[in-house]
């Protein structure tokens, strides 16, 4: 299980400090929900952890190696990244779009070898996309597209999966389904899954760990049940909140 860590991570853009010195450690088997208000720095933190941003101070370590020292092609095989609302720009078939996740492992004109074909078939089955494999991705519904993108991210078998707001725009059924899948990737398959999530009930019940970001700083870090408290939510969102119920039936109730 490959550990991911940040040491004194600082990102500045246009004069303002978006991340103000973040230290954290994570490893395989964890499904980490990154919570915080809009503009707290969640997307920036995820992009920095994925090695997609210029960092102004500190470093991100994947398997004890600074991300800057890992060749982009090798990094692409170790960690997968999905931005907010990912979409395909051409009407590719689901199967071919998923294959793009294999990147350099594809041959001259993008053909997949037998090993890669098997890998594609596996992720399509895991994400319940077998019936849709020949469909054009531009015709998929929001939930189907989210699954197809997840398959695209998983096809290279990454140790680390970093996803920016994977639940945005999904109805409750698809959102809970996506959260279940991400938890299974961590808990059952031993991957490290880090996702920014606005639905606090899903974070509370499905994540194994929570990172609470506030104004570019890590305000809290721990298991959801003990970390997501009324006091923390008050500070994060500036609203009075209560946690009702307990264990697997706990939920967050905001009282504006």
């Amino acid at each position, binding site marked *: 299980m490959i550990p991911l860590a940040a040491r004194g991570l600082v990102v500045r853009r246009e004069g303002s400090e978006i991340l103000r010195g973040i230290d954290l450690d994570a490893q395989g088997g964890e499904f980490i929900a990154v919570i915080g208000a809009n503009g707290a720095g969640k997307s920036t933190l995820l992009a920095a952890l994925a090695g997609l941003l210029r960092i102004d101070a500190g470093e991100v370590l994947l398997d004890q190696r600074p991300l800057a020292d890992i060749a982009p092609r090798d990094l692409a095989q170790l960690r997968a990244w999905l931005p907010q609302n990912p979409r395909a*720009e051409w009407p590719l078939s689901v199967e071919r779009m998923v294959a793009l996740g294999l990147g350099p492992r594809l041959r001259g004109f*993008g053909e997949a070898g037998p090993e890669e074909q098997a890998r594609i078939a596996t992720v399509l089955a895991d994400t319940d996309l077998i019936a849709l494999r020949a469909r054009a991705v531009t015709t998929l519904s929001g939930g189907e597209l989210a699954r197809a993108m997840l398959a*695209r991210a998983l096809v290279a078998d990454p140790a680390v999966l970093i996803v920016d707001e994977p639940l945005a725009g999904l109805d409750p059924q698809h959102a809970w389904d996506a959260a279940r899948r991400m938890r299974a990737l961590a808990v059952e398959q031993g991957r490290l899954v880090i996702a920014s999530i606005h639905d606090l009930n899903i974070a509370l019940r499905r994540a194994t760990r929570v990172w609470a970001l506030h104004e570019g700083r890590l305000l809290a870090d721990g298991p959801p049940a003990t970390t997501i408290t009324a006091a923390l939510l008050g500070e994060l969102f500036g609203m009075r909140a209560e946690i009702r119920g307990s264990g697997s039936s706990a939920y967050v109730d905001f009282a504006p």
Partner: protein
Amino acid sequence: MKSITGLNAKLALLLVVLALLSLLPGRAGWLLPWNLQGNDAELARLIFWELRIPRLLLALLVGAALGLAGAVLQGLTRNPLAEPGLLGVSSGAAFGAVLAIYTGLGAAFALAIPLLGFTGALLGTMLTLALGAGGGVLSLILAGAAVSGLLLAGTALVLNLAPNPYAAYEISHWMMGSLADRGWAQLFLAAPFVFAGIGVLFTTGRALDALSLGEQQAASLGVDLARLRRQVVVGTALAVGGATAVTGTIGFIGLLAPHLVRAAVGHEPRRVLWPAALAGALLLLAADVATRLLPLAQELKLGVLTGLIGSPFFLWLVWRMKARSP
């Protein structure tokens, strides 16, 4: 999986047939194989080897360069309406060539026009790259539009200041684009640059495929986007700049060719490249043969014909896109 080899084979076969047929008609009359035999066929052989053959090769080369560059630019911008002229390459070539005609260099030394045209194409695209570098694809497109606008204004200025009507006539003729009266000299001048550009453009396939997932996902898959943009600009400058410098501006081939083949290869940018190059060659050759067959007092300029056929197609594309978007 759709067969890309099958499509390429079909296009190549079509191209060979059309290439052979294209050798027959021309302004100097029909040439049939038996016209080239015998002692009194000196003139026919001269026409065949010095006019028809280089014109055919130039058509294939220029058409392939335009089709391929169009496919690459549409892949880079993820916009089906993109075409090779986008980066200021065509307007740069036009400006350079027009300067050569205006200054009289073109009259003194025949190859001055393509040489200055090529220099203009390179300068135009490099200026676009310099202005648009650093930002994303959008800033590159905007820089290309600004540079094209400036160079077109420069070309209009030269036309405006043209010393005599003959120079203005020659300039406007050059800008229409044609393969007429081009020989081995023009072909040898253009070929090294066009081949180098085609080579560079073909290396962009994998990155263009990844880019169909958007810039962020492409970057996460290990694609160096800044390097890709440089490759596309340099490849287009060499291929389209070299081609345009000897033929003048020929529009719509680069726009049309990728569309004709895209659905057949499942829309994947990398798989569109080869068929688009072949389709570009096919379209340009067909258009050139048509200019020779149309019974008009003046031979129709190739650029005029591709414009007449291409514009309605462009409109149809816009309509189709409008129908699809909500």
